[in-house]
């Protein structure tokens, strides 16, 4: 009995350690959004006050910052612009990435491996290095100060990584599946749409989440390419309209940040189930 008890207590200790580490993680990652939400509901007086405990609301919550956001800034325009940019960006990036990843992982042409690596290396070029040449290109196309410039530019950031991610996922789908479809009479496009992509949904979702996040949260490119209020997206719009010189409207900034966070959070929550339930289960024995 003694060794078993020893084993059990060792297991308990390990579990406790795990929970402690997870607990640290939770605090670490949830504190910033907590702070954002907290600040957005505080009155300006309380935000600026140096007294009392800053981690709770003591002088009553207010929705004033949210009201101001909708009435005194162009927040809704920024939000609309973010949506108008992100939806086509995600669509364009996914179409290109899926076709590229399929070709690179399945068609087995000469040099596919090298090109696959090259695609990934492109992703390693930082965007802060690219925005000056891109600025010239956008200017030459006459798209400066237009949100549509972002639709053109973001896929260049997203496609390399999304392609690389999809190559990895596609490799996990048994090759016999597409071969069976080809023998069954499908051409490559039919096979891709009817067999391959439905099975690859978890991978597609991962890539979609990535594409969405890059486009939704991008700051540098919209800052460089759009100037006027009617063309700006959430990230730059809220900042430029709520930081006046050296005056930071913290309440409004945090309210804007909370609202800007909602779509990605909802997307994650909604897609996580699909993402986790691997659809490949059952297609092959292994």
């Amino acid at each position, binding site marked *: 009995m003694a060794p078993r008890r020893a084993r059990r207590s060792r297991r308990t200790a390990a579990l406790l350690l795990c929970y402690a580490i997870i607990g640290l993680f939770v605090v670490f990652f949830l504190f910033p959004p907590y702070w954002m939400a907290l600040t957005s509901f505080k009155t300006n007086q309380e935000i600026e006050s140096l007294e009392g405990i800053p981690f709770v609301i003591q002088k009553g919550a207010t929705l004033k910052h949210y009201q101001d956001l909708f009435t005194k800034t162009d927040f809704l325009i920024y939000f609309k612009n973010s949506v108008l940019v992100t939806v086509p960006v995600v669509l364009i990036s996914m179409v290109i990435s899926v076709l590229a990843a399929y070709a690179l992982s399945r068609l087995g042409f000469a040099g596919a491996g090298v090109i696959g690596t090259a695609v990934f290396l492109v992703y390693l070029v930082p965007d802060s290095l690219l925005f000056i040449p891109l600025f010239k290109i956008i200017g030459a196309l006459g798209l400066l100060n237009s949100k549509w410039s972002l639709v053109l530019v973001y896929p260049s950031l997203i496609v390399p990584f999304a392609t690389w991610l999809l190559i990895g996922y596609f490799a996990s789908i048994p090759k016999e599946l597409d*071969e069976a479809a080809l*023998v069954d009479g499908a*051409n490559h496009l039919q096979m891709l749409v009817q067999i391959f992509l439905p099975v690859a949904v978890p991978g597609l979702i991962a890539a979609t989440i990535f594409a969405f996040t890059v486009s939704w949260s991008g700051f540098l490119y919209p800052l460089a390419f759009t100037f006027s209020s009617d063309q700006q997206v959430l990230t730059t719009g809220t900042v430029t309209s709520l930081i006046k010189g050296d005056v930071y409207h913290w309440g409004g900034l945090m309210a804007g940040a909370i609202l800007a966070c909602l779509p990605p959070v909802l997307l994650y929550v909604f897609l996580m189930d699909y993402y986790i339930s691997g659809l490949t289960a059952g297609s092959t024995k292994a």
Partner: protein
Amino acid sequence: MAQVMMKELNKKYDEVHAVKDVNLHVRDKEFVVLVGPSGCGKSTTLRMVAGLEEITSGEISIGERVVNDLPPKDRDIAMVFQNYALYPHMTVYDNMAFGLKMRKFPKPEIQKRVQDAAVLLGIQELLKRKPRQLSGGQRQRVAVGRAIVRHPQVFLFDEPLSNLDAKLRVQMRVELKRLHDRLETTVIYVTHDQVEAMTLGDRVVVMKDGWIQQVGEPLELYGKPANKFVAGFIGSPAMNFVDVALVDAGGALWAETEGLRVKVPPAHTSRLGAYKGQKVTLGVRPEDLHVASGNDPNEYTFPAVVDVVEPLGSEILLDLRAGAHTIVARVEPAVRAKVHETLKLALTPDRARFFDLKTELAI
């Protein structure tokens, strides 16, 4: 219904020459099994017939058509894969109907064919399920069903039973054979299991290192193996091989090695004459050895020490030592042999085989 012709078929990958000068004529409605150890080129050959692998050189024709440059969908073949490769997001019905939908069959015809195949395979109850809700054997049936609804000219099977447990494999083996009798279609079947090959094939093609070793009916391969590899590969337990010297003694030819000396059976003497004074490989199947009785002529017997006794019920396998050689004998269940006991073994003279030591070809 069609014959399949392979002429001088070759497949080279960068470094590997996987299939070498394969010539094979699969007749109409014939069940041909390609068998061999892994890496022998059997699957590659099948995949070339399917159009899933490019042909390096040579020619494949199905029916009267050369299909070298046709994509898989235009070859009128159906294939069953080792891992089933069912479409996981579709129901069993849709899995089976997919090929027909791709070929734009009218809906009632699709329904009828899927129903018929489901009845034939006993999977009517499963049509609405998804593959992940099925057992291994059921998935296998669906995979077969997906192939037969199309009424293709040729069925290709790539180790379809390897993922099943032993009992189910035997059962499915029988069903596949019955299915072939009913459908009367040409079948090319790949397996590494020689028992499957022997039981299923009208003819069996033994391959090794990309070469065809021998093509023949199962019993022909068993009784008259063309070389040492085929002799050792077909049959379980495998044939015993002993390297022996051929010596002339008293006007007769004897096969000799340390601990073993038997006369060369009369049927072989003329062919083995040229090897007098040289070494050859003697091959004897375990079932062609028995414990000697008074009726056995002395010149075909030799002593051996029992090492291991494996009583299987219907028979007993004896692992014995004759000099430095290990030998397996399959004997009657009535034989009472003890470990370390010395037995007098006799071989059935006209069943012994001789192989050239260098070329390994049958003599």
